């Protein structure tokens, strides 16, 4: 079945997919979303069953009245990066929708579902929208914006922005992005609209959230919204702050942090320092050392103390350097890259996709393989127990359980959860 996207659509994510459900929410809140329609999950299942395409597809596409459309997948559960996306479609849209339905069954997508316990017959919806262009001119752009810093939990918008580029360039890590607040200087009206939208969305979800957006000259478009997306330590801070702001109560704040998250939050992390770059944490742990820019140099320099190997990306020719280094940084590549797999196999902390890091050999840096932070010098580690937000959350947990005996944080949390 095909439904035009609009505030009146009353269907859950199970029916229209998570992406479309998020877009409907954005529209209900009066936020700017490109016009479009969704081909629902049932249609996706019908295609998987007998190859049949839904009727009315081209009529719905024509009704949009635009030259070009974007065509994206959107299942009820998130399967990031597993399925096809077709951008800038002119003419008939049926082949693109067929391609995306079909991409449900690539070997890679099947393996992902098997690992994550997602049924193979679930199927995906497809969202077709008027194409918006972040690469139109220097006043255009694309980005990802978090309502709060996903690493620290600080209450300030955080994200990446690419002027004159498309969203897929931002997400892939191919292009060098700018920190989101640059938008405040370059396009103040768009910045004001975006930060207001994030604030509206937080109130709606009663949680931190993040959006993908595109800017056409003077005009903001939101393309996706999701709640959450925080690291463990920031999740603790955000839960406590949201209770302080009155968006949730203390019981809810305690409920949101699982014992697993608490354990992860207790892992020591780099103190905020002179941030040189932020990539993605690919192999957990913290390391400090002098920068080596080739594997051979890493091997030689390692004789005189710890070395951080910084490479554009890695090849087998870097393996001896990876083994000699204390930590690893790559400019390109993601969490499932050769470099990330090798770093984990060696137990070395690693940050991947630190696109804008370019340092002279010998510079002392520290890296955090959880948060993805790369900082100058050695700022030291966060003390595991001195986190005021963590203390406050656990004291609320004790209020709920009525038990103040000395126990581990995980036990205190579990006791509160048992009381509901």
């Amino acid at each position, binding site marked *: 079945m095909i439904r035009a996207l609009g505030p009146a659509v009353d269907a859950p994510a199970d029916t229209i997919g998570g992406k479309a459900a998020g877009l409907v929410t954005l529209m209900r809140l009066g936020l700017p979303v490109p016009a479009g329609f969704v081909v629902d999950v049932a249609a996706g299942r019908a295609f998987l069953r007998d190859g049949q395409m839904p009727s009315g597809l081209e009529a719905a596409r024509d009704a949009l009245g635009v030259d070009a459309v974007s065509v994206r997948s959107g299942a009820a559960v998130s399967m990031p990066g597993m399925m096809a996306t077709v951008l800038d479609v002119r003419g008939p849209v049926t082949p693109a929708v067929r391609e995306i339905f079909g991409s449900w069954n690539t070997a890679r997508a099947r393996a992902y579902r*098997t*690992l994550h316990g997602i049924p193979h017959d679930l199927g995906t919806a497809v969202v077709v929208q008027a194409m918006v262009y972040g690469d139109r001119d220097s006043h255009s752009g694309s980005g990802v914006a978090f309502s709060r810093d996903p690493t620290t939990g600080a209450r300030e918008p955080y994200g990446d922005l690419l002027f004159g580029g498309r969203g897929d360039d931002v997400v892939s890590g191919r292009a060098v992005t700018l920190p989101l607040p640059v938008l405040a200087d370059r396009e103040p009206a768009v910045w004001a609209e975006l930060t207001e939208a994030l604030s509206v969305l937080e109130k709606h979800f009663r949680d931190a959230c993040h959006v993908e957006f595109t800017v056409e000259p003077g005009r903001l478009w939101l393309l996706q919204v999701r709640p959450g997306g925080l690291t463990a330590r920031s999740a603790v801070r955000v839960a406590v702050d949201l209770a302080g702001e009155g968006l949730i109560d203390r019981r809810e704040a305690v409920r949101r942090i699982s014992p697993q998250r608490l354990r992860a939050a207790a892992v020591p992390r780099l103190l905020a320092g002179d941030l040189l770059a932020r990539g993605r944490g690919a192999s957990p742990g913290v390391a400090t050392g002098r920068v080596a820019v080739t594997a051979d140099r890493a091997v030689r320099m390692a004789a005189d103390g710890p070395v951080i190997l910084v490479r554009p990306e890695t090849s087998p020719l870097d393996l*001896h350097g990876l083994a000699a280094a204390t930590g690893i940084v790559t400019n390109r590549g993601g969490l499932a890259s050769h470099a990330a797999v090798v770093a984990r*196999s060696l137990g070395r902390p690693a940050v991947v996709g630190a696109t804008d890091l370019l340092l002279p050999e010998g510079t002392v840096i520290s890296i955090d393989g959880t948060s993805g932070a790369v900082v100058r010098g050695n700022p030291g580690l966060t003390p595991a127990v001195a986190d005021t937000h963590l203390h406050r959350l656990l004291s609320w947990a004790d209020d709920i359980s009525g038990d103040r005996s000395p126990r581990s944080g995980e036990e205190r949390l579990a006791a509160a959860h048992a009381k509901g």
Partner: protein
Amino acid sequence: MSDVLHVLRCMGFAELSRIADAVGLTEGETESGLIDLAVDGLVTREMGAWGLTAAGRAEDLRRTSAELRAAGAAGAVESAYGRFLVLNPELLDLCSAWQLRSVDGVAVANDHRDTAYDGRVLELFGDLDRRAEVVCAELAKALPRFGRYRERLASALGRARGGALEELADSMTSYHVVWFQLHEDLLVTLGRPRT
């Protein structure tokens, strides 16, 4: 006979035992080959590991492209490389799933205590390996030296199935390391930069 120079080109710096295993010769035969190459200034030995010199890399490039031309195999290797690139992200996903698990949205090291989970990953590895076998066979048909990768991959998977958990993604003889070298070999053979 496999070419010691080219095998080492795709491995980086390595100890004799690893090179011999990759080439498929005894350590004695391999060392003899390495010494000849060292006399010609093509390889060097530092801190216990052998690696190519700049001259060695240039010579390997010359030999590899001449071999590809002589065999008329560029088209076949190119098309097999295209199929390899489809499998590569899946292989990296599986290695990552073997090393890390998402517990309540938090990535933690896989402690391998959940045998059902490990079994699922291993089964998916087996499935991928069957498709990789087809690609390796195409490559070996075009250039016989690629046949050794098939043996090494199958051997790594066999060891992992036999309980050597580090042989999928976490040792220097693991399935991932052999795959990584195959990736490098394809790039070198086709004269592509790593992008």
